[in-house]
């Protein structure tokens, strides 16, 4: 009888232990996240024009240090940079913004950059954009008025798409470049090119979806 009871106890213990390690993500895209933050005091309705570069900068840990803007950093492959820029452009147009050349005094400038790393930095050196940014203001670096960007580390090899919308009209040599809107998209660098592109497209759309304050007045 005691043996039977011990079997019963073992069965209970087995049932209880089932699910000790519950399910986690099954697919890579379940790990994709989209983070946005903005300066609440900035009136996005009072500005309308923006400029977008033709390239997406690839931020590496230490192998680019051209501070005078004479050299260009590495860029993301055209397949992905075209996708990133087109999706940003499409969303901005849908929200009522007008794209202009960077020499035509845009209100805002959008800087997309990509980082592939196991350490997640949401800050990167200003000189990655010094070759392109008009006015030479980036020398004092970025600042995020009224909000902070979180910083994490991860043991996984992941990719970050970092989109900064800078306030071109209020940049100054003394203070640097204010960034009223920031996007951090993070996910694993896995999957076929088409699958990866689909995830990227969806994530950029989501960044705009969760930032309704970007909507221009005439479209509200």
């Amino acid at each position, binding site marked *: 009888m005691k043996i039977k009871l011990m079997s019963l106890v073992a069965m209970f213990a087995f049932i209880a232990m089932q699910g*000790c390690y519950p399910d986690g993500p099954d697919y890579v895209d379940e790990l994709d996240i989209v983070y946005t933050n903005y300066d609440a005091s900035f009136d996005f309705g009072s500005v309308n024009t923006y400029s977008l570069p033709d390239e997406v900068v690839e931020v590496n840990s230490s192998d680019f240090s051209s501070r005078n803007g004479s050299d260009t950093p590495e860029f993301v492959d055209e397949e992905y940079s075209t996708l990133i820029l087109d999706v940003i452009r499409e969303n901005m147009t849908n929200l009522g913004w007008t794209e202009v050349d960077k020499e035509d005094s845009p209100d805002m400038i959008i800087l997309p950059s990509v980082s592939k790393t196991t350490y997640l930095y949401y800050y990167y050196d200003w000189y990655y954009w010094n070759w392109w940014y008009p006015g030479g203001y980036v020398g004092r670096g970025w600042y995020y008025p009224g909000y902070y960007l979180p910083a994490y580390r991860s043991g996984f090899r992941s990719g970050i798409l970092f989109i900064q919308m800078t306030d071109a009209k209020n940049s100054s040599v003394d203070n640097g470049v204010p960034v009223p809107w920031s996007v951090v998209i*993070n996910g694993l660098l896995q999957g076929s090119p088409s699958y990866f592109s689909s995830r990227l497209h969806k994530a950029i759309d989501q960044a705009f979806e969760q930032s309704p304050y970007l909507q221009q007045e005439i479209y509200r």
Partner: protein
Amino acid sequence: MKNILKIISLIAMSQFFFTDLHAQGYTSIQYHLGIPVGDFKDYIENSSYSGMAIDYNFKVSPSFAIGAGIGWNAFYERKPYATYEDGTASLSGIQYRYSNVMPVHLTGQYFFLKESNWQPYASFGVGTLFSNRTTDMGLYRWNEDAWRFSLKPEAGVTYSPWHFAGLKASVKYNQVFKKPDTDEGHSFWTVGLGVVFIK
């Protein structure tokens, strides 16, 4: 962990002392179904099918027993893709929420029938609950360990057709007191089914 060791030591010591008084001791091992309530349910809505409890009680009179118990339940829920806002920040993704809880209580137990194989009882426990709460989102993890004061009213019945063993069914409510100004509730019901060893 030190608190757990103290509880286990108390149980062991009490067994030693009360064996000399010819007190009847009961050790029960139960499977526990956990059902979150209140703020805890807001965090994880799903019931826990992974859980167990071990209790030891000894009778100090024909109708009253004192003892101690320790339990464990694992709660889990996958939250679908959603946007979470915190001030000006918005974060979208799928969340995986885990909560492991381990209640430890000293108990007083009253038996309604003195001479019967069926022993319905009511019990009340005072103790603590250790919780490990983990939220995974993307590649990031938020983790929190906490000890909370806890009360545990309980009702149940034991059926002992044999002199050395029987069965036990119980319903327990783990009232867990949270820190002020937080919404980190951990209160939950458990429905238990298991065996009792009588010494």
